[in-house]
């Protein structure tokens, strides 16, 4: 057996900041206000089924859009000069140095009525409202999480041995065939981790919908945030259900990864 000593600080950290909170949430979810065993919180949670489904749906769409945008971007990045690659990756990261709330506010300013975008489109004769709908929420989410999709895909793609690409060309592949038969299958692990890194936080995100969405665009993260002020038991129950959903999602993603078995 290997010595476990070096991992002790990590174990302490996990116990104090992860295990104990999860146990507390589990305990609160299965009790009522007086601390007696009760399933009332879960019954209450069912009121929010619609919001729950919508949240997962929005997360799924955002993830899909991120993937569609990030994949070609990551591929183009790997074909550029190394210095250009580094600059572009840097530019991609720069917005992340700014506060999350600030970035959302920036979008509010950009999208609201009489904003620069609105005024420009008005000049072209297009009059519309750009904020306060599901589309704006998805836009905010995609903006927020796109780098988390680009980076893992880019990392996996740039590690593909150039020898494999040359071998494919040598055997008669055009550039497109090289992409389809070699680059695409070998970049699957990057897609899996990108999808995971975008879907998981976007399913549980809050505030984005409050600022960019309309009255119907409330997401489950916002519900949990609100409800905790008044009813910790129901809040815990919803959190627990969300956690289980995400856990199942992660297991499914891992199954995908195993199947591809990339060395």
């Amino acid at each position, binding site marked *: 057996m290997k010595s476990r000593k070096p991992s002790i600080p990590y174990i302490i950290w996990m116990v104090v900041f992860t295990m104990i909170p999860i146990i507390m949430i589990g305990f609160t979810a299965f009790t009522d206000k007086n601390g007696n065993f009760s399933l009332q919180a879960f019954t209450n949670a069912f009121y929010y089924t619609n919001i729950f489904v919508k949240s997962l749906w929005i997360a799924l769409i955002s993830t899909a859009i991120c993937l569609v945008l990030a994949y070609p971007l990551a591929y183009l990045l790997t074909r550029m000069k190394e210095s250009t690659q580094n600059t572009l990756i840097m530019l991609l990261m720069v917005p992340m140095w700014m506060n999350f709330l600030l970035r959302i506010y920036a979008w509010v300013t950009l999208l609201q009525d009489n904003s620069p975008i609105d005024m420009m489109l008005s000049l072209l004769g297009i009059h519309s409202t750009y904020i306060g709908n599901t589309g704006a929420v998805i836009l905010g989410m995609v903006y927020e999480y796109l780098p988390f999709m680009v980076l893992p895909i880019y990392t996996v793609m740039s590690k593909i041995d150039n020898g494999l690409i040359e071998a494919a060309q040598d055997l008669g592949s055009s550039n497109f065939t090289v992409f389809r*038969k*070699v680059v695409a299958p070998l970049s699957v692990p990057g897609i899996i981790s990108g999808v995971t890194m975008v879907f998981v936080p976007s399913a549980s995100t809050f505030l984005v919908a409050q600022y960019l969405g309309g009255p119907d665009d409330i997401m489950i993260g916002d519900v949990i945030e609100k409800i905790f002020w008044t009813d910790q038991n129901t809040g815990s129950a919803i959190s627990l259900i969300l956690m289980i959903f995400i856990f199942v999602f992660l297991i499914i993603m891992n199954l995908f990864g195993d199947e591809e*078995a990339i060395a």
Partner: protein
Amino acid sequence: MEQTTNKTIVSLKDIFIRFDGEVILNHINLDINEKEFVTILGPSGCGKTTTLRIIGGFVEPESGDVIFGGKRINGTPPNKRNVNTVFQKYSLFPHLNVFDNVAFGLKLKKMPKDEIKKRVTDMLATVDLKGYEKRSITKLSGGQQQRVAIARALVCDPEIILLDEPLGALDLKLRKSMQLELKEIQQKTQKTFIYVTHDQEEALTMSDRVVVMNNGVIEQIGSPEDIYNEPVNAFVADFIGEANILNGIMLDDCRIQILGKELECVDKGFGKNTPVDVVIRPEDIEVTAPEDGQLVGIVENTTFKGVHYEMSVRCGKCEILIHSTTSAEIGSKIGMRVIPFNIQIMNKLLPFYDNVIETTVTYSNQNDNLFEFELEGETVTVPNKYYEEGTKLKITLPPEALSLAADGVGDLKDLYIESVVYKGEHNEIILESDERKWLMLSDTDEQVATYVPLAFDFSKAQFEVISEFSDKEG
């Protein structure tokens, strides 16, 4: 090995290429015939892999033509060339199994499925991998991966197979058996094989013809026997097999002087009293009684090698290597004989022995007793010697006045080591600077194709004034 009048399949004409300003191939010419097993042999950094990549289409030469089947194919991408490569690291697709790896090229040719299946199965049988179709690439041993890589290239039925040190990663035993297998496959399939290696034994075992390269040029092209028995220069002789390479003087046609003794040889046309390099293979030296020998020496070391004894014999200052079926005791005096046919005479690698610099003194100081001159953009200081500024000098530096310096303290920086040849007494090292070549002696083994700084010992140099201070300014 048939050397019939085969048709040329691929020619390289006057190929020149640089990477980052460094010349990799210096105007090389090479013709390769149909159904031939050609090996490009040379130390690492000699340009052999680049030559292969030019034929494969992965590298475009700066100038020169690549002719394939009579057509110029410069600029044709690899996927449009009827050439397949076995890569050094195999480059097998990790996401595909053995069958799909081998079938990769055929599927791209839109061949019917049952035809692909038949061809792949046959090819796997040829490389002894019958029944491995469904195996994962990552679960195969190095030798098996190697054979999949060969099958993947061969199954496409190209006119030429390029092999880039394909056996480099295998252990010795496996390498030996794969060498024979490759040769067998080549004869069975009747394809042109162009094989790149730095292993001279591999080259001699498998090839119909060997191309020996060094420092971006082709030194010699010939059959393995030619290359071994009649190397054109000391580099080739040293690189191929074991050899005694000695400095000699060609006194006249068929008269050679080595180690102070005059011997008979068969070579002509070198002129009179010409310094030459002499090669005598260790197995060509016959051990005799001291009084019967052309040369006499003391046995310093003897090792039993199974087939023969390997003896190291001191002959004056020089060490001579002998392979003999009879042994002699260490410390005993023996005679050595060589028949004239086995003395191979070659032109020197460099036309000079002493390194001569002609220069003008740019600064001098009588108090400190020193002067300076410019050499390839560096200022070189000569201590303990004074010549007036502007004096034109001829400085003769014998090879022993040159030495490799520590980093940052040399008189010249970044000299390329072109060749290192052991001459029985010292290593003779040929260095290349920006503008010229240098000859140096060393007792340590230096690595060819690396860069080193050089220092001059001017106390061993000779100075000759060509003209005093001239009125020309500067």
